[in-house]
């Protein structure tokens, strides 16, 4: 148990070991462990973010689906309404047209009637004239009688 040069030797050896440990052992191990810790943390964070994004996307999809459904319902309702309007319009137009045709036909008919009557009147006056001619057998002043007759036929 003598104190001797061993003391110095051990101090030098200790210093060398500490230096080696500080230079070649501690930094790479600690750096690797810190890097691993960071990558695990990042991974967990990314997973968390992915989860959130997934939830967000799901919600978006649901919202989109719901709004699309609403839109579709609106479109169908609009189409129904429009169809009804169109049918109503068509009905109105058709009845109007029918009325017009009716009125037109009536007017034509009236005209025909008037025309036929006038024709008839003319024929009647000629017939009367012939009849009178044959009754009287005498030349009548045709011109005078014609005026008279046309007066007559007008009053008819």
């Amino acid at each position: 148990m003598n104190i001797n040069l061993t003391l110095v030797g051990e101090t030098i050896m200790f210093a060398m070991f500490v230096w080696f440990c500080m230079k070649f052992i501690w930094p790479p191990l600690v750096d690797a462990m810190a890097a691993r810790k960071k990558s695990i943390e990042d991974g967990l964070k990314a997973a968390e973010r992915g989860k959130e994004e997934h939830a967000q996307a799901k919600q978006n999809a649901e919202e989109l689906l719901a709004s699309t459904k609403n839109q579709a319902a609106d479109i169908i309702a609009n189409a129904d309404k429009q169809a009804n309007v169109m049918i109503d319009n068509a009905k109105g137009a058709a009845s109007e047209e029918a009325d017009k045709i009716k009125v037109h036909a009536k007017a034509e008919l009236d005209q025909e009637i008037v025309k036929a009557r006038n024709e008839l009147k003319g024929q009647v006056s000629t017939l009367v004239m012939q009849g009178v001619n044959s009754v009287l057998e005498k030349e009548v002043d045709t011109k005078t009688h014609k005026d008279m007759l046309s007066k007559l036929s007008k009053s008819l």
Partner: protein
Amino acid sequence: MASGELTSSAYIKHHLQNLTYGKFPDGHWGFAENAIEAKEMGFMALHVDTLGFSFVLGALFLFLFANAAKRASIDAPSGFQNFIESIIDFIDDNVRGSFKGQNRMVAPLALTTFIWIILMNTMDLVPVDWLPVLAQKIGAIFGIDPQHVFLKVVPTTDPNMTFGMSIGIFLLILFYSVKEKGLGGFLGELTLHPFGKWMLPANLFLEGVNLLAKPVSLALRLFGNMYAGEMIFILIALLPFWIQWSLSLPWAIFHILIVLLQAFIFMTLVIVYMDMAHQKEH
């Protein structure tokens, strides 16, 4: 027992003698053949066994950890790598907990002291006669008298070893005290505290004792514990061989605790002393 012709006292003395290589009083260098010759060498002597075992164990520590450091990557560690990294984590936690300064040297210092001391203390668990007797057999091959072949297996039972480490720590304490606080700050801490400047000699005495007690207590605590443990193993080895296990087994199991505890205490105190050296405010 090593040999029937030995007395108990000679056996114990033989086990407590280092293998000493040094300068004889007449000037030539050589191995001491007995305790008296070793003592006569004085300071100019080396304990070859202490130096050898501590170097081999320190190199083993550096080899294992450098291996782990080379394989350290961002991928999941496995087996041995995991074990090394858990030790690193443990040391790192301790340093972060106790050391408040900024110094990249403290954590490797703590790791080196911790593992090196554990390995050296663990040599105590090797049965006390194995390596010394092996050395004697090897010595006998070279024609050396077995009584002159000494081998002390546990480096930490040599005060040269423990004081060697604690002196290294002491130098670091002085260096960082001066570096962090300035020479004036460090001297002020030694002389102006705790009683103010009019009691300067008393302050210097108290603080000086306080400062010197750090390396001395570090070295003596480790040395004392390991020396006592080794002594008890040697005493147990004096018993008849068929009864030895009944005492050496419980003591060895208990000694595992001491091995780890002493290394841990040494490391913790090193961290605390380094922290004190870095503290600017008292």
